[in-house]
């Protein structure tokens, strides 16, 4: 039970960190992402040190994604999004299908419908 909540908390934190990305723009200009990030300089350094675009590309490849496509996919991510994925692709939620829906609905739908109607 504890680990479920820990995971839930992790996911909320991941969503929150996804909201403050970092980037560099063209030479000489200080990039918008870099400026917009609320992270302190110390945080920024930490993130930059652990940047893993090539790492994430090769992870995607190892999981069946075509090499060139993996590169394009990672290119559309912010530095922080890359950071979230690095090393965690195997364990993150991956939306897949809707099997289980019917069973789950039968179990809980009656109860929750009743709660709403007696509001």
């Amino acid at each position, binding site marked *: 039970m504890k680990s*479920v909540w820990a995971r*839930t*908390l*992790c*996911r*909320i934190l991941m*969503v929150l960190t*996804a*909201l*403050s*990305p970092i*980037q560099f*723009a063209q*030479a*000489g*200009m*200080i*990039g*918008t*992402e870099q*400026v*917009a*990030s609320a992270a302190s300089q110390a945080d*920024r350094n930490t993130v930059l040190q652990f940047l893993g675009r090539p790492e994430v590309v090769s992870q995607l490849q190892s*999981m*069946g*994604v075509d090499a060139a*496509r993996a590169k*394009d*996919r990672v*290119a*559309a*991510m*912010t530095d922080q*999004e890359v950071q*979230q*994925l690095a090393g965690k*692709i195997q364990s*993150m*939620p*991956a*939306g*897949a*299908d*809707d*099997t*289980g*829906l019917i069973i*789950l*609905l039968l179990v*809980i739908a009656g*109860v*929750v*419908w*009743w*709660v*709403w*109607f*007696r*509001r």
Partner: protein
Amino acid sequence: MGLVPPLAIALDLQGSARRLAGVFILTLAAGCASFIPQTSELAKSWPPELPKQVELSEVPFFPQLEYQCGPAALATVLVNAGAKVTPEELVPQVYIPERKGSLQVEMLAAARRHGMVSYALAPRFEHILREIAAGTPVIVLQNLGVFNAGWHYAVAVGYDYGPGTLVLRSGTLQRDVLPFATHEMVWMRSGYWAMVAVPPDRIPVTAEENSWLNAIAAFERAGDAQGARVAYKTFLGRWPENLNAHIGLANTHHTLGELSEAAAVLREAARRDPESVVVLNNLAQTLSDLGRNEEALPYIERAAAAGGPFAPAVQKTHETILLRLRGQGSRVERLQ
């Protein structure tokens, strides 16, 4: 099950014998409420500005192929927003064969590649409803499994306050009707994760200033400078005081080679915040790129004097400008 809503309990508190039972039931009800806190909140107080019933029936439906609810859900919102794309085209952009699914980060990233600004909503049920009421379908990540498998993307396209139901394009169902509480139970397991994707000239109704600016910056990074320019302009229409949005707009102008426009936006930003090192640096760089190095020099000197976290970038710009000035000088000498 002994679940009684709070109102019924309040009416039931007349007799002292009943009071004890009331307290007991209240505890149960409170337990239930904390189980699905956001649904309970909506049941107790419906946001007055929200319509009671909305359904975006024009939102397209792409029945998913096996395991591919990610591409199907993404295509639903992208096509609705005006992109020309099919779920099949999105499969190689978000699907991971070995995981038999799609990651949240990739859902956000792939939308940017189709000219839309993607935005992860705050983890609030009310925000889903507000987005739908504003005409924007919302992708939600649910977990329908008994344990930790069963992650599923669906698109919320409508709701009805009366029966308390959410309408979703989900899997092979064009019109999946889920009670609010059921949805909350399967949705909360993803940390209440939800996203929208809108064209750059729109702002999601629940967008928060800084989060939305970050979403635009992420969109800019994905490479659509023209779209980003529109997005920053739209942003400044809503939040004209935001300094970083000025910087972003100027950066897109600069990327597109519109140097005079970039300089004008940065001068405006410098008037708002004369001390911003980033504005000074970018203005100096832009003026230098326009060939106006003498004019650029005092700006970069002020930026250099201020120091701070961007000092290395400022130093580089300073060196570039000095180098170009020397180059100009020697050219002038040669001409004479």
